[in-house]
């Protein structure tokens, strides 16, 4: 299986994702410059965190127009796996891969800390190694993580199980106090209808080693690998 990490001008977590996948998981991975338009040979594309184009105008507002994004659209439409982390999620929203948009955090301050997440949907390539409603720990680091969509879109999203993670307390309780940025329904991660494009605000690549405070992020990458090898095995 081969991962591809897109590098936009201003991406910061591209090297962290590369390290997590190659050095910790031992998988094949390559960087993809944002002007590349041919994604053949890749099985999972990652849009990493960071401040693409300085987050000027709106987070992800300029990066979505990079040449690579057309190729990512075709790749996703063809069933390829796409994972957008933090700024990557914001780019997927601006580019219309996923419904909704990000507003500034309710406290109007950048937030960097570990949070608890409850797994809402483990029937997809990104969380198939997690238990239903399992509570995990991952770090967040963002200024605009306040997910918003109009009520009609949210109802449809919830109805089809499109919410993958919610901000919770250590026992899985969902309440305003466990919501760091004000996102509607404590939503922390959203998947598309086809189930192959995931956008998430927490950073899995930052918790792949106990040394740095947690390993729950590692299981997300392992889910992708196991799903991919399972699928290839079954030939679905």
């Amino acid at each position, binding site marked *: 299986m081969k991962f591809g990490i897109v590098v936009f001008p201003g991406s910061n977590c591209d090297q962290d994702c590369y390290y997590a996948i190659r050095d910790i998981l031992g998988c094949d991975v390559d960087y993809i410059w944002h002007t590349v338009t041919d994604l053949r040979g890749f099985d999972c594309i990652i849009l990493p965190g960071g401040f693409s184009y300085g987050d000027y105008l709106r987070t992800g507002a300029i990066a979505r127009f990079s040449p690579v994004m057309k190729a990512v659209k075709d790749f996703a439409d063809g069933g390829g796996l796409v994972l957008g982390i933090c700024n990557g999620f914001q780019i997927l929203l601006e580019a219309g891969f996923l419904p909704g948009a990000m507003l500034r955090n309710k406290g109007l*301050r950048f937030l960097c800390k570990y949070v608890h997440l409850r797994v809402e949907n483990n029937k997809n390539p990104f969380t198939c190694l997690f238990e239903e409603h399992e509570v995990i720990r991952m770090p967040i680091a963002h200024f605009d993580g306040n997910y918003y969509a109009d009520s009609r879109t949210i109802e449809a999203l919830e109805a089809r199980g499109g919410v993958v993670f919610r901000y919770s307390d250590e026992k899985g309780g969902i309440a305003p106090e466990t919501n760091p940025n004000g996102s509607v329904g404590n939503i922390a991660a959203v998947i598309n209808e086809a189930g192959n494009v995931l956008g998430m605000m927490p950073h899995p690549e930052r918790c792949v080693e106990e040394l740095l405070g947690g390993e729950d992020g590692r299981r997300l990458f392992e889910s992708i690998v196991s799903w991919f090898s399972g699928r290839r095995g079954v030939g679905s």
Partner: protein
Amino acid sequence: GRGQEQGQSRPSWWELGLTEAEYREIVEILGREPNWTELGMFSVMWSEHCSYKHSRPYLKLFPTQGSRILIGPGENAGVIRLDERWAVVMKCESHNHPVAVEPYQGAATGVGGIVRDILAMGARPVAILDSLRFGPPDDPRSRFLFQGVVSGIAGYGNCIGVPTVGGEVYFDEAYASNPLCNVMCVGLVEIDRIARARASEVGSPVFLVGASTGRDGIHGATFASQELGEDSEASRPNVQVGDPFMEKLAIETCLELVERGYVIGIQDMGAAGITSSCAETAARAGTGIEIDLDKVPLRESGMTPYEIMLSESQERMLVIGKSGRENEIAEVCRRWGIGCALIGRVTDDGMLTVKRGEIIEARVPAKALAEQVPVVLSRESRPSYIDEEWSRDPVSLLGAKPGPSLLAELASAGKTRSGKARCEPEGEPGEPEKEPEEEKDLPRFSRDLLKCLSSPTIADKAWVYSQYDHMVQNNTAVLPGAGDAAVLRVKGTGKAIALTMDGNGRYAYLDPEMGGAIAVAEAARNVVSTGAEPVAITNCLNFPNPEKGETMWQFSRVVRGMALACEILGTPVTGGNVSFYNETLGKPVYPTPVVGMLGIIHDVKQRLSSGFVREGDIVALIGPLDGRGASLGGSEYLKVKTGLVTGKPPQIDLDVEKRVQRTCLRAAQSGLLHSAHDCSEGGLAVTLAE
């Protein structure tokens, strides 16, 4: 330029902050009168900020040699060996004056500048720390500055993807109209890839890489060399605005240029922009540089040679390329989408020659600009306040005779309430800071402890560091708030580095020599408390007006105290920064030495955090327990209880200090310790509560 056009009443050199003696020296060097552009170049390079003309004679006292020191003071940053392959690069810089005028941009450009100093050594920036000092947070202006500076550091540091992992925040009336913002950056470089900021090969192409040049911050350097007066608002030069996105592109571009071996030398365009970068790189190599201003990309029209040479526009680097690699250098810059202009060549005449097309606008010896500032022989006079302060006895001021009951109470205080008051400026969505009802009936010393724990200087700083991305780059092994120093693992080496920034203005005010020694010792204790061996320091020396005898009396003693402590604790000085004129309307700040220290943990698994780990563990206090030299003079406890900063501060015995630190380090290295925490503000009681 200003002087020439208006019929100036005062001589031009006075207007640019030079003395008559300095002007005569310039005329002698040139063998003629300088023109306006040349005079501007000298005025900036010979300003206190760039030349250290007041502090240079004293800084010679610092020990700078050591087995691990690869590059000491004199280059853009110090370089310390980590192992046979890797080296650590570090430096700190002060941005006090710009922050007083515009806190967000002042702090942001402070981060940008110090990051480029690390980049100039060919190193990847891996950590940022900041040491901040404001007036009390209940004063609206101080709160505005505090919030602005923190969000400026966060806004810039987070965007360039360098984690802000540590530092300190102090609040005291002395800094109300003169905030201090010292920023430290640390980088990693492979030893065979270290870049030197030297224009060593004649004929090499000279590039300006990064943003275009505007009228930003002209006289930023001289502005930093003047006291902020009543009209500092009006005399404000164009404030410098940072572009972190451009900085990120500059980081990746420069590292790739070094990686590909296209570069001979790199220098940040800090204070005095093109003038300082060209003069210093040429002076270090004994060569010259000739540039053509027509090749410099400009952001504003009609800029004079004076303005172009003195502009302090941000996010610009001077890159001395290898001859024949001009196209490859331009290609790397094009791919990263960053500006790149070939503005000149290295020459062998030792001159900095500035042309516009064929007209020579300035021609000045590079060494004269960079190294030959006439050093100022300062007079020192012992301030009268010293004897007054030492005559007061803190314990009697506190009206309490400490006895067994005190120790018993303090021990039990830890159980009643952890006192997790948050250091949050009012108007923030946090609990109000009123004293809850049930505290009234607590024993006196328990109430005192809770008061100390809620004093802004001691209180929990999560409100600050949660705004910093302190995890990016996947190296932060001990997170902010969890240890006495930040600890970053170094991938592929099994080792880790410990980083801290520490200073104490009150001790240095009350007893400068002791204050200087304590600042170094305090930083070393924090490093040792994470299981790391202290190896080297950088520093920021924040002082009032050097033209006053008291200031230089304080300065000479602080430096002497620091030098002695560095000698005994084995932490040589690898460079740093001096910031004078921290004084507004005659009201000076405390003399404030801030020490940035590096420690090395040989096995990352032996790193320590500062919290208790397991019930039943033994709690031990290491150090002189006979009370020798102990004192509540200048303590936070005294300030919290009486509002006074007075008395003779604690007298440190550096030999005992070294033995205490060695003991803690050996215990950590032999796996005896779960955690360690240094006693500082608020003493043993606060340490136990934390």
